[in-house]
């Protein structure tokens, strides 16, 4: 009598050929690859959009003189993942201005001794899609957003305070 062919044989192989465990591992690897692709291409439209130079301001708040001295026009700025945020084309330094409360509970614009607000003007190639601006196609610029930033000499965080064009 002809033996009935089983879907999974006694050694756990599908149709006697492929191990179920092997198949599961292959499926996991493919799923990971797909997930990675989707994650890294989530701004898929930005991949196909041409790059436009965008000028914007980043303000580094309440830093000491040592930090102020180490940022200069021409410096390149990156985010914490190494994404290019542009080149410094201008900078202004002002005494730090912070919102502070008084004893009566009211808020005032106050100063902070020994601290400065450093505003950088940067130019960076951006992909623009549906009004969203992605520096170097990756980091979205939004006014009010805070970005951890580094230069060759400085590590800090900065607020996007204006997008000029």
């Amino acid at each position, binding site marked *: 009598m002809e033996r009935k062919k089983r879907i999974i044989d006694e050694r756990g192989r599908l149709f006697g050929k*492929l*191990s179920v*465990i*092997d198949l599961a*591992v*292959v499926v*996991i*690897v493919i799923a*990971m690859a797909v997930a990675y692709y989707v994650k890294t291409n989530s701004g898929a439209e930005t991949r196909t959009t041409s790059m436009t130079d965008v000028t914007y301001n980043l303000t580094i708040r309440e*830093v*000491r003189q*040592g*930090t102020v*001295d*180490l940022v200069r026009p021409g410096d*390149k700025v*990156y985010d*914490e*993942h*190494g994404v290019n945020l542009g080149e410094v084309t201008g900078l202004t330094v002002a005494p730090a201005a*912070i919102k*502070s*409360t*008084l*004893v009566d509970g009211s*808020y*005032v*614009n*106050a*100063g*902070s*001794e*020994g*601290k400065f607000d450093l505003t950088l003007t940067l130019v960076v190639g951006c992909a623009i899609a549906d009004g969203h601006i992605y520096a170097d196609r990756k980091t979205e610029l939004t006014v009010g957003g805070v970005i*951890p930033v*580094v*230069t*060759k*000499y*400085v*590590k*800090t965080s900065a607020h996007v305070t204006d997008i000029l064009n």
Partner: protein
Amino acid sequence: MKKWRLNLFDLAVIVLAIAAGAAFLYLQRGAGVVTGSTSGTTVRYVIEITNLPKEAAGKIKVGDSVTDKVEKHALGRVIDFEIVDYKVSTRDLTTGDYRLRAVPERFTALLTLESPAAESATNITIDGAFVVRCGTEVSALGPGYGGVGYIVKIER
């Protein structure tokens, strides 16, 4: 003895291991940015160690080797130092302004360190992995003293 042959399962495990290794290296790179080519140099920079008692401040000497207490990186040798009052920013409740006020019997040590370094277009690295940037927090350990502060200056 059965001869070992590479099967699909083994291959998948190897691929996973390589992918995990690559992901680990990528994440470790962190803020290293694009390093490009590097060249040997000497970096001089200043770290602060805050809130020190007088006894600890008195132990600091030129020539001390300073290490990072957490990751054990060699941070360099002390080539100069200055002891100043430890000041904290406190709010004046009448004006709202923040003023620096000295804390009694506490000191800040400003250590100028010198170390061999690898310099690229985007960063300065010492001891193979420690990236020197103003604003980086350090947990410094010298002979008989230690504490926490930031890198506050780099010779540029």
